[in-house]
């Protein structure tokens, strides 16, 4: 902002303020006169600050104009007929400017069609009615707000007190009544439709604007109704509301500057921060609690959240996205409140300040994505192994087992045919032993197939499969297994853990009995195999269970062994199992 212009405006404001104060003390008491000047100066100073700090924004100029108009308005109370005439006709423009600047926040332009219509209607009202009143005011009848003061209108045509009263009261109704009500509605509507971050910025302004509007409506009411309490009280209400408006406006406009000072703190804060603290720090600095940070994954050519999950950055209008690059490569994107688009420099500054932390977080997101990929592939490997086991089981059943059964039948037929022909006993014995051999071979094959993948597990489920397993166990087993079907890979894992666990008990524990308990617990399938044996089992990593531990962990579960010497062994697997 031009220093000379600022100097001229300050001098003009000071002169207008002094003149206004002097003019008013005829009509108003001194504190009221001083307060009116203070309001004008508040707008002027706030406007100059805003103009200086954000020269491109029209809000500053609009507020300076408002301040000057509010000061000039009060000159109408002076003795000078020319000043009275001019300032009486143009004076209320100051109040229209107050409404205009509130609706023009934060860009300085009134963009909404309804708001623009209201502003235009406001200007027309405050220009037309005083102009007409000045034509009819001849100095004999009292003017509204002038008490008993009599003034001289230079453009008086005819002295008609009724017409003046009618015009002034109509202006009160239209401007302070109807237009102020609409003003409140539009302010509330704008607040209602605002995004969460914008609401926080708008809140002080909306409060002051509504107070200002309500004050105007009471003024309209008291034009027709006797004031039930001291007018002094109403005056100070008006003073606070009108005084608060420029402060709220300039505070909102300078938020970005304050926030940019916060960027410095961000640098310090992020120096020792963990990547997961990054989002919170940026959200605080940019004043948007819902802010999200997503990271570019170069390998996948997509943005992902901190956990590595791909994110779709569809621009839906509800949230805005600022993309951050580093040396020409995409680094991250900040998903934020659209109101921050008004302050792109702030977002970029915060992004630049957080660059190192962002790079760390990007690496972490990338690692998380890779880890997720590895986890998924582990699950797929388990599933593929299960499929392969099932296929082997089915092939053996359909092929070798069927052939062995057919062979057994044929040997039996040969035996029977020999019976009827009084055969050689040596041949008969040979045939009998061949049948027994065959049955033994078949039994061994069945045992192998059970170890590969028991058919009963996929046909009837875990409980039936474990019952079948318990039947073959050399010592008694107490089974408490939940009924019903589970996802195949969970069933298979629980089955293999149990069968391997029981095999270990048989081999090492010298147990007289064992129990198996399988139950669903908080989204987990808990498998517990305990025995009354000697305990002191080796650590999991060294036992035959380590392969099973890998399998359980692939499904996101855990496998643990508790085996205090002399107190039996307890094997517990917990497998995630969505219900």
């Amino acid at each position, binding site marked *: 902002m031009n220093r000379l212009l600022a100097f001229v405006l300050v001098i003009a404001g000071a002169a207008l303020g002094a003149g206004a104060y002097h003019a008013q003390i005829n009509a108003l008491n001194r504190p009221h006169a001083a307060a009116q000047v203070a309001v004008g100066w508040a707008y002027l100073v706030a406007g100059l600050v805003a103009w200086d700090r954000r020269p491109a924004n029209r809000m500053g100029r609009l507020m300076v104009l408002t301040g000057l108009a509010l000061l000039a308005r009060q000159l109408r109370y002076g003795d000078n007929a020319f000043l009275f005439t001019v300032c009486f006709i143009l004076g209320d423009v100051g109040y229209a400017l107050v409404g205009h600047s509130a609706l023009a926040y934060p860009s300085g332009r009134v963009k909404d069609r309804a708001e623009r219509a209201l502003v235009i209607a406001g200007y027309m009202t405050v220009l037309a009615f005083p102009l007409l009143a000045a034509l009819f005011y001849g100095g004999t009848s009292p003017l509204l707000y002038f008490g008993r003061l009599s003034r001289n209108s230079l453009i008086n045509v005819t002295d008609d007190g009724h017409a003046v009263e009618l015009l002034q009261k109509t202006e009160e109704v239209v401007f302070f009544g109807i237009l102020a009500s609409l003003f409140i509605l539009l302010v509330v509507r704008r607040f209602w439709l605002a995004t969460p971050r914008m609401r926080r910025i708008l809140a002080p302004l909306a409060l002051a604007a509504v107070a200002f509007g309500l004050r105007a409506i009471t003024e309209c009411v008291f034009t027709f109704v006797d004031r039930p309490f001291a007018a002094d009280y109403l005056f100070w209400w008006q003073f606070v509301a009108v005084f608060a408006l420029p402060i709220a406006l300039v505070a909102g406009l300078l938020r970005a500057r304050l926030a940019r000072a916060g960027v410095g703190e961000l640098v310090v804060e992020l120096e020792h921060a963990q990547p997961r603290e990054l989002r919170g720090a940026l959200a605080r600095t940019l004043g948007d609690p819902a802010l999200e940070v997503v990271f570019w994954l170069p390998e996948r050519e997509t943005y992902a959240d901190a956990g590595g999950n791909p994110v779709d950055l569809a621009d839906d209008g509800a949230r805005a996205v600022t993309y951050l690059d580093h040396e020409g490569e995409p680094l991250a994107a900040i998903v934020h409140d659209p109101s921050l688009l008004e302050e792109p420099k702030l977002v970029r500054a915060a992004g630049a300040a957080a660059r190192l932390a962002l790079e760390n977080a990007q690496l972490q997101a990338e690692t998380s994505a890779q880890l997720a990929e590895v986890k998924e592939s582990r699950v797929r490997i388990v599933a593929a192994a299960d499929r392969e086991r099932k296929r082997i089981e089915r092939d053996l059943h359909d092929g070798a087992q069927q052939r062995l*059964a057919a062979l057994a039948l044929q040997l039996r037929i040969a035996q029977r045919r020999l019976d009827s022909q009084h055969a050689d006993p040596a041949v008969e014995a040979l045939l009998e032993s061949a049948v027994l051999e065959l049955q033994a071979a078949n039994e061994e094959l069945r045992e192998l197939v059970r170890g590969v993948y028991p058919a009963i597990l996929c046909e009837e489920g875990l409980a039936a499969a474990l019952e079948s397993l318990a039947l073959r166990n050399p010592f008694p087993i107490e089974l408490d297994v939940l009924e019903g079907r589970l996802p195949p890979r969970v069933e298979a894992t629980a089955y293999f853990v149990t069968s391997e666990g029981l095999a270990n008990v048989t081999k090492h524990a010298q147990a007289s009995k064992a129990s198996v308990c399988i139950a669903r617990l908080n989204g987990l399938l808990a498998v517990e195999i305990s025995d009354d044996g000697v305990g002191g089992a080796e650590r999991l990593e060294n036992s035959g269970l380590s392969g099973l531990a890998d399998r359980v962990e692939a499904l996101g579960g855990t496998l643990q062994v508790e085996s205090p010497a002399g107190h039996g062994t307890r094997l517990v697997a917990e497998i995630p199992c969505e219900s």
Partner: protein
Amino acid sequence: MKKLSGLSRTQPARAFRVHLVVKVLRLCDILWMAVTVVIVDDHPSFRSSARTLLELEGFEIVGEAEDGASALEVAAALEPELVLLDVALPDTNGFEVAARLAGGPSKVILTSSREQRDLGRRVRSSGALGFVSKDRLTGQALTALLEKVP
């Protein structure tokens, strides 16, 4: 006209003779204690081996079926004393067929290349009389199961 009346006289007579032959055969069956059997399996080689073995052991194989639907038809038409029923069938499984046959005139013995304990609870819950695995199938095994029933 004469010819027609002659025909109408001879047809019931022929039907009666067929009926008589069936009755006599049934009587012989009962006297010889030959158990009538229907074999249900989708492998023709198993059906023929089982037929040969069981016939050698004094059973009378009255019919065969290759799937669940035809097994039900054949059993309803022939009313055998025993249905030897494979668990793995192309259109359904032996447990379902056994459940449909339960309560009828025929007893059901299930068979499979697996063992009973590999098949779980369904063997018992299907209503079948018993189970014999294919590599242990003999007439004696079937008779033992049939005689077990009160």
